[in-house]
């Protein structure tokens, strides 16, 4: 039965224009990451070549090529911005769509008059959502690899591919968190639209409000994949900084930067420890979604 629900979920998503529109924007932005990286790369190389020519004419030695000291994956640094912004919203909508029909249109009455348990239903939905997000991240990873090949003019090394795959797995977990938020807010709301709006509110808080709160002295913290230095002598900001382990968006960007080798290196154990609270939040959300599905009265149709 879990497979039947997951299969139906994937078929439905393929036909839902809202999901397809978000998917198109996300993949477009992923491809754009490559274009932006390639454009920056080309500009820097041109400036470097011109500088070398000028310096050579003056008889001075040329400085080292800037790209030799920059990690190859730095070209994809914008991915750590697009995933929390567009990818998370896509996942939220996906989670909402996954349970909204059964919850609000009355299809749940038909579904649960069959020999289907609530546990199988929710596991099937989670499997369907997980597979859909997995496919999205696989497509994004392939697009990123293609972008690297175009930008660098060579095939990425095996360690770089490994880092990219690890980054995709981390991103999949991050997206799953928002899909669970979308499912939970929809299951807890009587009106479908309220469920979606509540989910979007959570996304806004996690993506923009919480990073500002926990890294208040660095207003660009919500965008830059750079960990915030312990920064202020003000007691208020020292307190807010302590809440940082719960700011999943910042943790995601920080760990992503580590995986993609964008920032100063840290021991792997420190990076892993940073992920633990996020994993705990995902598991707690999954348990809440399961509980909400068990408690929901599917004999009554909700409202739009």
């Amino acid at each position, binding site marked *: *039965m879990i497979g*039947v629900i997951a*299969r*139906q979920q994937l*078929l*439905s998503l393929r*036909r*839902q224009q809202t999901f397809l529109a978000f998917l198109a924007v996300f993949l477009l932005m992923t491809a754009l990451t490559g274009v932006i990286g390639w454009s920056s790369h080309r500009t820097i190389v041109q400036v470097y070549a011109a500088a070398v020519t000028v310096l050579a004419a003056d008889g001075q030695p040329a400085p080292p090529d800037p790209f030799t000291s920059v990690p190859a994956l730095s070209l994809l640094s914008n991915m750590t911005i697009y995933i929390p912004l567009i990818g998370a919203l896509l996942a939220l909508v996906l989670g909402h769509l996954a349970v909204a*029909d059964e919850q609000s*249109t*009355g*299809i749940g*009455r*038909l*579904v*649960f*008059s*069959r*020999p*289907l348990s609530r546990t199988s239903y929710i596991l099937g939905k989670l499997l369907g959502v997980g597979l859909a997000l997995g496919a999205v991240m696989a497509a994004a990873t392939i697009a990123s690899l293609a972008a690297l090949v175009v930008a660098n003019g060579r095939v990425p090394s095996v360690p770089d591919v490994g880092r990219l795959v690890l980054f995709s797995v981390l991103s999949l977990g991050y997206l799953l968190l928002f899909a669970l938020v979308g499912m939970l807010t929809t299951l807890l709301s009587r009106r479908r639209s309220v469920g979606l709006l509540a989910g979007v509110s959570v996304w806004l808080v996690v993506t923009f409000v919480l990073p500002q709160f926990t890294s208040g002295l660095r207003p660009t913290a919500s965008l830059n994949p750079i960990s915030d230095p312990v920064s202020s002598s003000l007691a208020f900001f020292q307190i807010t900084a302590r809440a940082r382990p719960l700011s999943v968006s910042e943790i995601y960007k920080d760990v992503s930067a580590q995986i993609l080798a964008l920032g100063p290196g840290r021991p792997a154990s420190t990076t892993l420890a940073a992920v633990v609270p996020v994993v705990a939040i995902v598991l707690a959300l999954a348990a809440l979604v399961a509980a909400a599905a068990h408690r929901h*009265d*599917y*004999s009554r*149709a909700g409202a739009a």
Partner: protein
Amino acid sequence: MTGAAIEMREVGHRYATDPVLIDISLSIEPGEVFGFLGHNGAGKTTAISILTTLIKPTSGVARVCGFDVVTQRRDVTRRIGYLPADVRLYDHLTAAENLEFFARLSGVDTPRHAVAETLEYLDCTELSGLRLGTFSTGMRQRIGIAQAILHRPEVLFLDEPTSGLDPAGVRQLRETVLQLNRELGMTIFMNTHLLSEVARVCSTIGVLNHGRLIYKDTIAATTSRFPDEASLEDIYTLVASES
């Protein structure tokens, strides 16, 4: 099937503190077409929700095909079909895709074959490849019935099946119900307001008034018991006013 197709013993249900069903006891034999009558809010849909295992009764025992709706839910749901009022399916999927999904959920071994066979049985094969979002109420109702009988249930629950249908649709539904009962031997439990349809389709009726079952008998016995009343509507009004 041995014994009653549907049996309710002192079944009660309440939402918060409001009683919706009060000590309902009734028995419906296999092969009967049972019409459950009652005003809006009488508790008809709640009764169907209990019998289809969607909600649990707060008191009493309900059995379908001999299985308890609470403790043997899986056995019950394998044997029933359900068409809710204002049937909704997945609008972005085609009729065939919707039906295939419900066939798989019902544990049908060959879903595609069952879908094709059922659509042919209901004479609506032409709807197979069309998306539900484009359907009229009548077309939805046809597909709704198809999803309810895909797995050839022993008992079919219909909740206000004629609501929103035009006269031609009502007639078509009536013929379908009779056909399912006659040819496939299904026991049919039908909630309805349309007393004229009850008189034409049902073999037994029950009247629910403010959560209590105030009357139950066969159509034949009912009309002979109230010889002075011109129609079932008059009988219903009389029974409801006497309770």
